[in-house]
């Protein structure tokens, strides 16, 4: 029988003290992982991406639970809790985005192609909802510009139109006429090419939860949240300003630009302040949601009161 003396134990075999102290956490994680494997519907697939500090706020991210249970995603209902309760039936694989219109190389990207297009980056952005609340969310994704450069927009292309999925089988909200489906959003080409504009595939280090717009959504952090279309199936480069879902619903209240602007109120409520989810007192809303240094020059000479 071989009895090892202490000196026989290789240093690499010794559990570091800090890991040893966290051994119960390891068991819990392992148990959790086993559970998640048993119920794949709630299993969160990991997604890796290096933090891009240049584009990330140092503010404390909103807890994962709040980010994934308090959502506006009208395809699943108008209640904040509808998306997490009803989105799980959405089938996000296979999925592809058709990029077409005024482009030199129209192409359909499978979600797997998108992930390989560029190394994914983690970007911690502020998110300001038009309703007056805000969050801080660690997204994972790639700049929209990376995708657009692949298809090469033609000179005549002035706008980018985003079209979301509208499947009445898996999206119960689409049966109601609360909005004109499918959900359509749009950006100017220069806004779409702005390095902050992100195609998000994940958040908090994992694949995008369905209620947050899986498998791929837009994130435009200096605009109100509804501009960031979810579950995108088509991107079109066009000459004319797209007629977005919210403009069709109420052009008087929701403009094409919808830049976060404390000086331009929603006709029915003030936009001067916001409640950061998790905080008690309201905070002042910043012009362009705090991204003025990066994006204000896009709107030089534009009357922001008129083009709200």
């Amino acid at each position, binding site marked *: 029988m071989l009895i090892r003396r202490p000196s026989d134990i290789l240093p690499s075999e010794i559990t570091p003290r800090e890991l040893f102290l966290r051994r119960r956490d390891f068991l819990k994680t392992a148990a959790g992982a086993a559970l998640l494997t048993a119920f794949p519907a709630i299993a969160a697939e990991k997604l890796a991406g290096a933090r891009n500090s240049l584009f990330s706020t140092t503010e404390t991210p909103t807890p994962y*639970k*709040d980010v994934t*249970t*308090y959502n506006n995603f*009208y395809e699943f209902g*108008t209640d*904040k*809790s509808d998306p997490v309760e009803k989105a799980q039936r959405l089938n996000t694989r296979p999925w592809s985005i058709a990029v077409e219109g005024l482009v030199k190389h129209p192409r359909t990207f499978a979600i797997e192609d998108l992930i390989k297009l560029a190394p994914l980056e983690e970007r911690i952005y502020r998110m300001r909802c038009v*309703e007056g*609340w805000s969050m801080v969310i660690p997204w994972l994704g790639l700049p929209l510009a990376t995708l657009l450069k692949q298809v090469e927009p033609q000179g005549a292309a002035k706008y980018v139109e985003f079209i979301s999925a509208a499947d009445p089988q898996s999206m119960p909200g689409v049966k*109601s006429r*609360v*909005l004109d489906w499918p959900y359509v959003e749009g950006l100017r080409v220069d806004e779409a090419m702005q390095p902050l504009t992100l195609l998000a595939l994940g958040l908090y280090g994992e694949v995008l939860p369905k209620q947050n717009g899986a498998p791929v959504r837009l994130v435009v952090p200096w605009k109100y949240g509804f501009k960031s279309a979810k579950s995108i199936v088509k991107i079109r480069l066009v000459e004319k300003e797209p007629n977005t879902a919210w403009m069709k*619903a*109420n052009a008087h209240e929701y403009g094409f630009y919808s830049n976060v602007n404390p000086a331009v*109120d929603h006709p*029915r*409520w*003030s936009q*001067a*302040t916001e*409640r950061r*989810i*998790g905080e*008690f*007192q*309201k905070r002042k809303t910043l012009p362009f949601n705090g991204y003025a240094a990066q994006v204000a020059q896009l709107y030089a000479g534009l009357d922001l009161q008129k083009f709200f």
Partner: protein
Amino acid sequence: MAVQPSPRQLAVLKILLFLICLLPLARLSWGAWQDSLGANPIEFIQRSLGTWTLNFLLITLLVSPARKLSGWHWLLRLRRMLGLYAFCYALLHLASYLWLDQFFDWQAIAKDILKRPFITVGMSAFILLLPLAATSSNAMVRRLGGRRWQQLHRSVYAISLLGVVHYWWLVKRDITLPVLYAALLAVLLGIRALWREQERRRQTNF
């Protein structure tokens, strides 16, 4: 079937009703304590108190038609409590706006009341509720005299209408619930108009 509770049974019924009416508030307090009101608890509390104000206004308006249809005259003895609960939830709803939502930012509040139609309407409804709550005691009914008291308290019809408008104008897009409240109110007010018209005809026929 004529149901006539004894005074003792009625007293028990009142106590039970008093406790039942406290349940929405108890649920909110418990939820706030347990932090189980979701990601935006302030919004939840504010919305819930508003909804219950409307609920109690409509329940109060239901008493008189229910009495007429069932013949249970004692139902009227429960109406004051229901009306005062409507006022109580309205007061809490207003307090949640002033304190939790605006945190006593009086400048922003004044601007809101003047500039936001849905807040103007809600505030008006609350102010109109004040004289009703103040004249709810038996002593005040005697002081005003039954007829004048009744005329004053008919303003609850307008108040309820303002309450529904307040709700309708605040929702972003999905007006399903405001429409439902409007329909219920229309039934409750419509039935009164119908009965009054029938009464008027009967009297002119004599």
